[in-house]
């Protein structure tokens, strides 16, 4: 029917109740697509409940390096009627909905929209071929593969891998039988009329990975040996990944009684010289802020991941937002140096994961990695070389070696006033360096102080570290022409959708560039002035209500960005959505 065929550019969306296997099927299918050499971006959306409700997994497959989801859906795979109700309007004309034959949906509703109902007896096939009706989601995915001409071998391979071992063998065989039957029916009955196809590409094998894994892997590469935490969505998977690898990595993972304990244990471990981190979100982060100040005052290197979610308070616990930026910049009483990294891609998550430890040790201060729900859970297929282990340098800053300590003749001063602000650090245990430190303001030797001069000296010493750190911070990333008519500004995980929006707008003939902040504190003031100071029209794009980055930019440079596209409904942007809003907003006002 459809004459023009689109190859390697389509979005699948599988939806159903929590517990129906949406997550595992989506992950498996994504892997198969990646194996077929495609770029894959997979977005998960789930509710704060364990069973029931409505979850979905949206997979975008492309021959381009897509880094965000799009609004259009080409193939909808509903495991329940609710998925059709919720998402039918997203399916484009010519698209299709793969439904179990008995699913109670009026096909006419689809046809009215130019969408094909693909009726396959999924449960029946699962029952018949696999002996278990729970395999119907395998059947659904296989129909999709069949319809898109994706070679069956990729499906088979993933099923085999997912069910290893002897007992797994039988389950794998059953699933493959189900998949085969469904695949054939999909290919035979519905393939010819379906206008989107998957053609395997020659490509180096890609990793399928989400931001939390990338941060965790970065930490592993940096020699992190400690993570203490308290469970909290969406941060928990960082720890769970490290815990699953604890034997290989020799890393201590520690679930604590609360987040207060989690950060303080990390501080204790860091004080002894261990590269240590904690990871949390929302309320957990709030509970940690007293200890953030402790790390600042005692100059203990510490890495804190805040995987942001929609607030305030418990908010939307499984949903997306970028609303802790100003909180991270100003949290805890008083003033002390801190560093804030805001990675926006899987690659940047990896880099932040290892860089954070270097920065923490070099500047002896807390380092935040701000990520968010979207980035924590969305998977992308990337070139393994993008995690360049060769570029990972371990820099421990002014950490005294045993030899240096052996040679020490003067009493060791933990908080020595230096011109850089950095005091050579030792860890407890060496006879030549008895180490005293305290959360009270202190002398160089760590004794508590009351007098003004020593206080001033320490305060200035600490704050001086920020000057050096500023030169170590990577400036915002500019993409697109320097003399653009339109500049899109964002930070963190909006990178993907803005990147795509820029490409789409460019294709529309607009000269547009993109300034992406991935390391925001110490604030890159000079780079900001250079990039935004002369910009013609600037649009700030953030997943929050108040436009926090824009406020920080104005605070630090005076540059005001009145045009804002802000989204705070718990969902990430898509590239086309940004394009629409740019066109309706700033461009319409020309």
């Amino acid at each position: 029917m459809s004459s023009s065929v689109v190859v390697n550019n389509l979005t699948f969306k599988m939806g159903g109740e929590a517990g129906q296997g949406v997550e595992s099927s989506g992950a498996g299918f994504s892997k198969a697509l990646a194996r077929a050499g495609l770029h894959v971006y997979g977005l998960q959306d789930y509710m704060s409940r364990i069973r029931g409700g409505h979850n979905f997994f949206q997979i975008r497959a492309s021959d381009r390096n897509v880094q965000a989801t799009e609004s259009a859906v080409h193939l909808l795979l509903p495991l329940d009627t609710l998925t059709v109700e919720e998402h039918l309007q997203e399916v484009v004309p010519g698209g299709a909905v793969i439904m179990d034959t008995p699913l109670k949906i009026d096909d006419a509703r689809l046809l009215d929209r130019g969408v094909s109902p693909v009726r396959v007896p999924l449960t029946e096939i699962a029952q018949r071929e696999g002996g278990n009706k729970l395999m119907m989601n395998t059947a659904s995915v296989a129909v999709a593969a069949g319809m898109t001409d994706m070679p069956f071998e990729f499906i088979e391979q993933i099923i085999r891998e997912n069910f290893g071992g002897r007992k797994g063998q039988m389950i794998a065989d059953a699933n493959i039988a189900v998949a085969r039957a469904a695949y054939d029916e999909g290919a035979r009955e519905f393939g010819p009329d379906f206008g989107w196809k998957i053609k395997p590409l020659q490509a180096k094998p890609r990793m399928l990975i989400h931001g939390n894994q990338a941060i965790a892997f970065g930490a592993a590469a940096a020699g992190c040996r400690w993570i203490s935490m308290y469970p909290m969505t969406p941060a928990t998977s960082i720890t769970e990944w490290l815990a699953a690898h604890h034997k290989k990595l020799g890393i201590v993972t520690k679930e604590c009684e609360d987040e207060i304990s989690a950060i303080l244990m990390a501080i204790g471990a860091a004080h002894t010289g261990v590269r240590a981190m904690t990871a949390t979100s929302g309320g957990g982060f709030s509970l940690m802020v007293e200890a953030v100040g402790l790390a600042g005052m005692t100059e203990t290197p510490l890495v804190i991941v805040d995987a942001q979610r929609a607030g305030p308070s418990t908010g939307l616990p499984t949903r997306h937002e970028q609303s802790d930026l100003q909180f991270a910049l100003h949290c805890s009483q008083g003033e002390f140096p801190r560093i804030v990294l805001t990675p926006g891609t899987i690659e940047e998550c990896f880099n932040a994961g290892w860089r954070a430890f270097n920065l923490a040790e070099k500047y002896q201060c807390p380092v935040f990695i701000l990520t968010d729900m979207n980035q924590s859970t969305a998977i992308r297929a990337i070139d393994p070389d993008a995690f360049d282990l060769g570029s990972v340098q371990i820099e421990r800053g002014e950490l005294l070696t045993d030899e240096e300590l052996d040679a020490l003749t003067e009493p060791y001063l933990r908080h020595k006033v230096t011109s850089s602000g950095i005091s050579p650090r030792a860890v407890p245990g060496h006879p030549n360096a008895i180490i005293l430190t305290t959360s009270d303001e202190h002398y160089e030797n760590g004794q508590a102080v009351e007098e003004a001069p020593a206080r001033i000296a320490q305060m200035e010493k600490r704050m001086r570290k920020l000057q050096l750190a500023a030169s170590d911070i990577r400036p915002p990333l500019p993409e697109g022409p320097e003399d653009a008519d339109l500049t899109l500004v964002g930070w963190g995980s909006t990178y993907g959708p803005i990147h795509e929006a820029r490409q789409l707008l460019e294709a529309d003939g607009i000269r547009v560039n993109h300034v992406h902040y991935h390391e925001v504190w110490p604030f890159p003031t000079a780079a900001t002035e250079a990039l935004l100071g002369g910009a013609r029209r600037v649009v700030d794009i953030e997943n929050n209500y108040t436009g926090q980055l824009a406020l920080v930019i104005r605070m630090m440079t005076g540059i005001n960005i009145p045009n804002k596209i802000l989204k705070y409904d718990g969902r990430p942007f898509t590239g086309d959505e940004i394009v629409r809003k740019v066109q309706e907003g700033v461009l319409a006002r020309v």
Partner: protein
Amino acid sequence: MSDMKLFTSDEKPTWCPACGDFGILASLKQAFAGLDLSPHDVLLVSGIGCGSKMPYYMRANGYDALHGRAVPVATGARLGNHDLRIVVISGDGDGYGIGGNHFMHVIRRNPDLTHVVQNNQVYGLTKGQYSPTSDKGYISGTSPDGAIEMQINPIALAMASGATFVSRGFAGDPKHLTQLLMKAVRHRGYALVDVLQPCVTYNKVNTYDWYRGRVYKIDDESGYDPSDYDAAWGRAKEWEERIPIGVIYQEEGRPTYEEQVPELQAGPLFRQPVERPRELLESIKREFI
């Protein structure tokens, strides 16, 4: 046996003259010397309060943390470097009030920490408000008609939480306290040493004399067996008339937390190399493919 003077700091304590904390400081130095420790072997981790200033007044590694938060810092430090002898110093407000949750949970973990709680039954450093161990009816700036809350019994709480070493000392008997601290440091696992510590400035009820009239040494009682949980439980509840000091309960042989963490079997965590083998990391990368 090392020299106690090794542990003497140049810093003069800022405590009120005759404060019970002096006795604790002296006992602690004596105990370290008695255990043949050196200052660099020891790490004192304290909270915030009068007594929590202890690390300033002793030559040893010291980390003066936050009010109520010494225990988790010490736990992290112990797991980071289990060659260090770590003594946690906290007040009754610090350790049982704001720090109560860490108290309960560290016991479940049983890391090898000695926890000295300077129990003066009052908030000293903030000028005399009632604390969780203040007697019911205790009058203070925040309880002008007397505290309504029941006082907590840290000995019973520690036992109910499953502590392997539960003891009480008295700052007015530094000799006994020294011996007790040595036992506590020697104990493998979490050891609570609740120390009755007269606050001569604010607590006019629980004075040296008040304690002296009540304490008795449980170690002196012939036949008292601190490994007998039920017997210990009976003593744990004594307070009004007679107050036992010494080791009230001790269970030996329970593994410490750090003994059960596989990563620590190769030696202290901080000694393990920061650079991980490139091949290991590359092989983990391949898992994602």
